[in-house]
């Protein structure tokens, strides 16, 4: 059996969501769709802090290490003294490391976002669910076949 609630108003939707949770409907049975982000929902559902924080930090640190490691390693293995400066010139390498921190951080953050939010979702690309600007709560007991019943 599948129940679908549609709301046009944000507050009505938030109230209903609270109500359903109070009644003891398990969160993992509920599918919620929002036309735009609503801050209250996160609080109500009590989700932990996004893992993206950690993933992004990891990406950024990898970038910094790569920036310094890559420059230092390659100038040592192919030494070419220019301008009488030391082979490992930290101030110059800071710029490369800085740019790579941002590059790696942004790319891992983006990839992390894709995997955490299960995108690209091929099933939904082929058969997207549309709620026409409404907030939707779908309570589902069985398998979801990607279609919904008209009410």
């Amino acid at each position, binding site marked *: 059996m599948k129940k679908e609630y549609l709301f046009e108003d944000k507050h009505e939707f938030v109230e209903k969501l609270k109500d359903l949770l109070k009644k003891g409907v398990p969160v993992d049975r509920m599918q919620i769709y*929002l*036309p735009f982000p609503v801050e209250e929902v996160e609080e109500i559902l009590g989700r932990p802090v996004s893992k993206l924080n950690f993933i992004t930090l990891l990406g950024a640190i990898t970038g910094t290490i790569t920036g310094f490691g890559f420059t230092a390693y*390659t100038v040592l293995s192919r030494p070419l003294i220019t301008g009488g400066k030391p082979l490992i010139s930290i101030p110059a390498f800071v710029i490369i490391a800085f*740019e790579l921190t941002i590059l790696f951080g942004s790319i891992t*953050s983006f990839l992390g976002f894709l995997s955490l939010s299960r995108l690209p979702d091929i099933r939904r690309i082929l058969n997207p669910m549309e709620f026409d600007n409404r907030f939707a709560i779908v309570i589902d007991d069985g398998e979801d076949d990607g279609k919904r019943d008209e009410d």
Partner: protein
Amino acid sequence: MNKAISKAIEFRYRIEKDVLAAMKKPHIQYWIFLFISVILFVTGMSLWYYQIKTGMGVSGKTHPVGWYMYITNFVFWVGIAHSGTLISAVLFLFRAGFRSSFNRSAEAMTVFAIMTAGLFPIIHLGRPWLFYWLLPYPNERLLWVNFKSPLIWDVFAVGTYFTVSLIFFYVGMIPDLAIARRYATGWKRRLYSFLSLGWQGTPDQWRHYNRLYMFLASFATPLVVSVHSVVSWDFAMSIIPGWHTTIFAPYFVAGAIFSGTAMVITLVVPMRKFFSLEKYITLDHFDSIAKILLLTSLIVSYSYIVEFSMAFYGGNIFEMEVFRYRAFGDFWIFFAIMIICNSIIPLFLFIRKLRRNIKFLFISSLFVNVGMWMERFVIIVTSLSRDFDPYAWGLPSFSTVAIGITLGSFGMFFMLFLIFVKVLPILSITELKEVHE
């Protein structure tokens, strides 16, 4: 839908309709603009082909003036890109409300401006087919790139900037593409469906999405400062008088944001008129963006004063001569245009009435665009044509090829922007909905 549409939802529909209306079949005016842009672009590319075939002599570069119009264009276009990031990322972090009216066009502008800018170092090369020698990759040439060179920093900075801006532009668009998917039919529907990655707007998706957006904005903010600093170091790291100063990095960053803000105004004013977006891009928003223009204009003017003062108090005769030459020498007209456009015309924006006068704002933004191009030209050419030894002085020659390629870059930029307004949502729909609630 059988139920009557309530008020809350009505607004959401109206935004979608108004914004996506821009994607409908274009007017004749659109085709005319697109045609002119394509012609300019194709002419520019053909002239580049001519230059490759004939040799670099046709570009007007001469012996002391080895950096000429192409490097001017490079710096100009990278600068244009900057304001896009400022508006989308910095104003996001500061929670400035007027941002959501401009951010999509500004982000698109950033991506297209970097694409245009990225071409110029390659056009500038005598053997453009060897441009990949700038990239550090395992090779059999027994050579390695010099990480101490600002030109390599440039490769990293501009490459990173392009990638991050593109991700930022795309990520901001994912929920809107899911809306566009609902309105489109046929192959277009499949395309938007594919581009929106199957976005459904579940709380988890929004949670990670908001986080990602915040991260990208926080990455882009220091990035934008670093990129134009690195571009300025292309000059400042040398010992050429007029270039070798520590003020260059902040001076270039301020100039970049100044010119970019002007370009946003240049693009958004006609866009707002053509697609009747007066409801979403209001006079208050223009008032705010005009204030940014005014502020950055003052910073740029201040930098001019500091630059000249440092030269004359510093007591270095070469430095003093270059600055005297810059203002009163062969290129005094360019210098005068630069001062009038960048330092004097924007002062009128102190008047509130003029800030809210769209026509005035549009015209002054055009002047600023011209003025900032002149600024880069003046900095590059005057310093190179007169350095230390009078025996080595010289002037660049006039070149229709270089002018044609410059116009071609404008053609490319406007062509890309015109295509953008027809295929992608021009305002951030979800953000406008969120702000309205």
